[in-house]
């Protein structure tokens, strides 16, 4: 891609440097652990060391006797109206919603489940106190694998249910069985999408501050969804939502881990209520490994009926999703998103999907970057290569044969979505050209001459973004809408404040939103301030997740700017003594058509609207507008990623030698930020493909509790990437934008695994599971060559 000139300010489409950066590079960022409130105490949680056990006694006396420890609270003494609530009830799934108390009552069901909370003068003393809390456990049998959990005779995670079924999703099109039976051939593939941990560099943390005199509670928390947290605090802690304020300080990454409402957030509020002072809890990294949601953990069995050209005439998926021990905010919905995206970017009319969700003795799973969609993409993209292999066809050609064609949009998928726009052949063509797909054979030969295996792999993806039309969230059983809020306020001096319901944690909304304001309202980039993540300033915001911020929140902003501009027009017409129809918008002022000397700038109009001395009949003072934008449809970004690997037969190391990504996210506000999202997304996909796996032992112990065992990619592990874009505007919104936050992660793992399978295909290797750590690959090579 041609280098885009970076600038210090600008409008839509320009690579504007971020206005957020200065506080972060100077150390002035304010993350939750940087906050101190007067009289604040510190909390440490006592957590279960067992995957499943009955609690027969808790002795807090020694801990409470320790100087500096103020209180130890357990289920019996921590006030709560209810446990953690799940907002996801997919219709027809027979979903079960087990109680998840803030602190375990009589049973623990996964390692890390909180049992008690120790509150002390500082974290060192709280930890000392936690070591002195004595809990008696009677261990119970455990099951950690979703398939095993659903087998007859499996240990029960929740003894109140007859089995471990958490929910079952089933979708089948009419005539499916006949279509599959009539297929010329069938191709079968089992794919494991392993459990991973989101691992934002800032762990979770929060400070609860319950004011005794008024009953008002303020929670400072590292979250993506401040308003959800507020609503749920009112339920769980039993107080008025109007008395709850949730403040989001700077957030050090989320990736879905902070798209949730957690026991600790409620517990510090209740603990503050009991103690009468603010209570702070900061998660340790090894605590994060068990206390914060995990992602993925889905086992898939595909059966594809295909014709001789590789076209899929019927597709069946039997899948098992590991939900963990309880349902967090959206747990049952995540694999529902997988169900929606099973066909990927292919025109597959006959489909049958059964998603069996299971309870296990593990940390709950929930949204992790991509949230159900990487599972779908990885599966279908592995399947495409398996079909190509079975028929002896080029994987690129098998994809082309199956692509939804540009003239088919808007396209109604067999899983019930309407894809808004797409041009899949063009991104594939461009990616193959940039990756020199045609020249691969020569590069493979050169690698083989050096004793190394070389392979190339494709991933052509489409994702569903812009979550979500509220009617759809209701229809799929999500107990929250999908609209987004914005307010634009012009001050008497012509400066602008934007209040957005989105909740950025690295995505650069202050910059992108300021660019939109400059272009749409003519207020310079540097004159715009963006407020987010504080429920005291916002009517309601749904937050940042699901690549929704721009496609829903950005569009809400765009519409508010339009309202302000039109109101300014009425005021301008009054001041200029003309009709509104006589005025034209110059980009920063309203002027009488053809008369540049008769004009009012937006700043002048902001001042006039505030002064309100010469307002048109019926027009209220002040230039301010609010929008609650509910999108009519999702958006569907897409693209092609091409990965080329070399594998060292002596070590089994998979080295990525080329990585090319051609993405289409519709119109772009800031290409620098989009590229940054793609870079980061790809490397998270790479992490899952090559290194990352959250592992439980058969006894339910967490075997990857720190960054020593759980391998996150470092700078030394990542390849240079070639990025490019095509632009297919979305018709789902007036800006033509789609979203890019998850694309890289959704696309990458399949491209990398396909490349590695291709590299070893000469040895007869047909499939590889993730993570492709050197030992696994070395063993595969040994088995294949011995």
């Amino acid at each position, binding site marked *: 891609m041609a280098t885009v000139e970076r600038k210090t300010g600008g409008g839509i489409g320009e690579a504007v440097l971020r206005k957020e950066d200065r506080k972060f590079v100077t*150390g002035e960022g304010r993350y939750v652990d940087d906050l101190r409130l007067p009289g604040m105490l510190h909390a440490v949680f006592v957590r279960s060391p067992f995957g499943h056990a009955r609690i027969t006694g808790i002795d807090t006396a020694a801990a409470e006797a320790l100087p500096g420890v103020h209180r130890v609270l357990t289920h019996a003494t921590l006030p709560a109206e209810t446990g953690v609530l799940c907002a996801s009830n997919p219709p027809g799934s027979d979903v079960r919603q087990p109680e998840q108390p803030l602190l375990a009552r009589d049973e623990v069901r996964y390692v890390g489940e909180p049992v008690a909370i120790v509150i002390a003068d500082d974290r060192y003393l709280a930890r000392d106190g936690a070591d002195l809390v004595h809990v008696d456990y009677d261990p119970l049998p455990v099951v950690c694998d979703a398939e095993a959990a659903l087998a007859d005779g499996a240990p029960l995670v929740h003894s109140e249910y007859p089995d471990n079924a958490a929910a079952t999703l089933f979708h089948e099109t009419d005539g499916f069985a006949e279509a599959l039976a009539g297929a010329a051939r069938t191709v079968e593939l089992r794919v494991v999408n392993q459990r991973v941990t989101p691992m934002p*560099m800032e762990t979770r943390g929060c400070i609860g501050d319950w004011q005794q005199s008024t009953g008002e509670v303020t929670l400072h928390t590292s979250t993506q969804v401040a308003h959800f947290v507020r609503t749920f605090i009112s339920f769980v802690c039993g107080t008025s939502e109007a008395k709850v304020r949730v403040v989001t300080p700077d957030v*050090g990454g989320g990736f879905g881990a902070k798209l949730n409402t957690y026991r600790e957030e409620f517990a510090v509020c209740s603990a503050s209520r009991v103690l009468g002072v603010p209570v702070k809890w900061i998660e340790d990294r090894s605590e994060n490994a068990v206390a914060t949601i995990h992602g993925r953990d889905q086992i898939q069995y595909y059966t594809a009926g295909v014709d001789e050209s590789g076209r899929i005439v019927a597709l069946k998926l039997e899948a098992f999703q590991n939900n963990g021990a309880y349902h967090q905010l959206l747990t049952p919905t995540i694999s529902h998103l997988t169900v929606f995206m099973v066909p990927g970017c292919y025109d597959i009319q006959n489909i049958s999907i059964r998603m069996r969700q299971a309870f296990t003795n593990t940390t709950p799973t929930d949204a992790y970057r991509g949230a159900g969609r990487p599972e779908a993409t990885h599966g279908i993209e592995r399947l495409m290569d398996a079909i190509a292999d079975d028929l002896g066809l080029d994987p690129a050609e098998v994809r082309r044969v199956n692509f939804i064609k540009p003239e088919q949009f808007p396209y109604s998928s067999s899983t019930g979505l309407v894809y808004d726009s797409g041009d899949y052949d063009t991104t594939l063509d461009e990616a193959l050209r940039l990756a020199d797909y045609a020249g691969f054979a020569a590069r493979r030969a050169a690698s083989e001459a050096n004793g190394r295996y070389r392979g190339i792999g494709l991933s052509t993806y489409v994702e569903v973004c812009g979550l979500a039309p509220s009617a759809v969230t209701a229809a799929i059983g999500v107990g929250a809408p999908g609209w987004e809020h914005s307010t634009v306020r012009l001050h008497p001096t012509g400066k602008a404040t934007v209040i957005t319901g989105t909740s950025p944690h690295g995505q650069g909304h202050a910059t992108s939103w300021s660019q939109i304001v400059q272009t749409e309202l003519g207020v310079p980039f540097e004159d715009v301030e963006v407020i987010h993540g504080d429920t005291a300033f916002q009517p309601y915001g749904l937050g940042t997740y699901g690549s929704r911020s721009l496609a829903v929140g950005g569009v809400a902003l765009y519409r508010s700017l339009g309202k302000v501009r039109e109101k300014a027009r009425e005021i301008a017409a009054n001041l200029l003594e003309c009709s509104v129809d006589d005025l034209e918008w110059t980009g920063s002022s309203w002027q009488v058509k053809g008369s540049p000397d008769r004009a009012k700038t937006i700043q002048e109009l902001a001042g006039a609207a505030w002064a309100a001395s010469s307002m048109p009949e019926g027009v209220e003072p002040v230039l301010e507008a609010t929008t609650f934008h509910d999108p009519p449809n999702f958006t569907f970004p897409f693209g092609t990623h091409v990965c080329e690997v070399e594998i060292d037969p002596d070590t089994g190391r998979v080295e990525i030698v080329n990585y090319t990504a051609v993405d289409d996210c519709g119109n772009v506000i800031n290409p620098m930020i989009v590229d940054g999202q793609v870079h980061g997304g790809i490397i998270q996909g790479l992490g899952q493909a090559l290194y990352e796996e959250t592992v439980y032992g058969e006894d339910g112990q967490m075997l990857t509790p720190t960054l020593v065992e759980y391998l996150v990619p470092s700078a030394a592990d*990542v390849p240079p990437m070639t990025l490019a874009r095509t632009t297919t505007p979305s018709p789902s919104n007036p800006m033509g934008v789609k979203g890019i936050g998850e694309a890289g992660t959704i696309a990458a793992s399949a491209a990398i695994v396909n490349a590695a399978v291709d590299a070893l295909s000469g040895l007869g290797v047909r499939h590889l599971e993730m993570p492709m750590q050197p030992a696994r690959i070395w063993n595969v090579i040994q088995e294949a060559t011995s």
Partner: protein
Amino acid sequence: MGQTITVTVNGTAHTAEVDPRTLLVHFLREQLTLTGTHIGCDTSTCGCCTVHLDGEPVLSCSVLAVQADGCAVRTVEGLAEGGELHPIQQAFHENHGLQCGFCTPGMMMTGLGVIEQNPNAADEEIREALEGNLCRCTGYQNIVAAVRSAADQMARS
């Protein structure tokens, strides 16, 4: 039980009483309220807490405050001078080398250490040197570019 130490942080000498088990990072953050240095793990793996101790990058989660007695510490707060960003800070900004910003102070302190030890480090050497600093947002491409750019800028000035 307290022990009195004197540590010069960003050019200012601080004498304070600390519990001997206090980590340097907690001393900086809690006692001196220099919260720009972050904590990202508990196994000395993530690099978020990197500061310079007598000119060398160290993990301040792996140093006791009492071990820093008599030493000079430089943190992210000590990079900019007179309101002017240090070249490493400017380079992270100009190269979009940060997103959420949490790893950034440690990443810059390690990057600066690389430059000071080897101003002509190749990209491959920069990548190897940054291996102990994890970033979950950027995919590192722009971080490596930022360190490279800062090295070039510092060589010119």
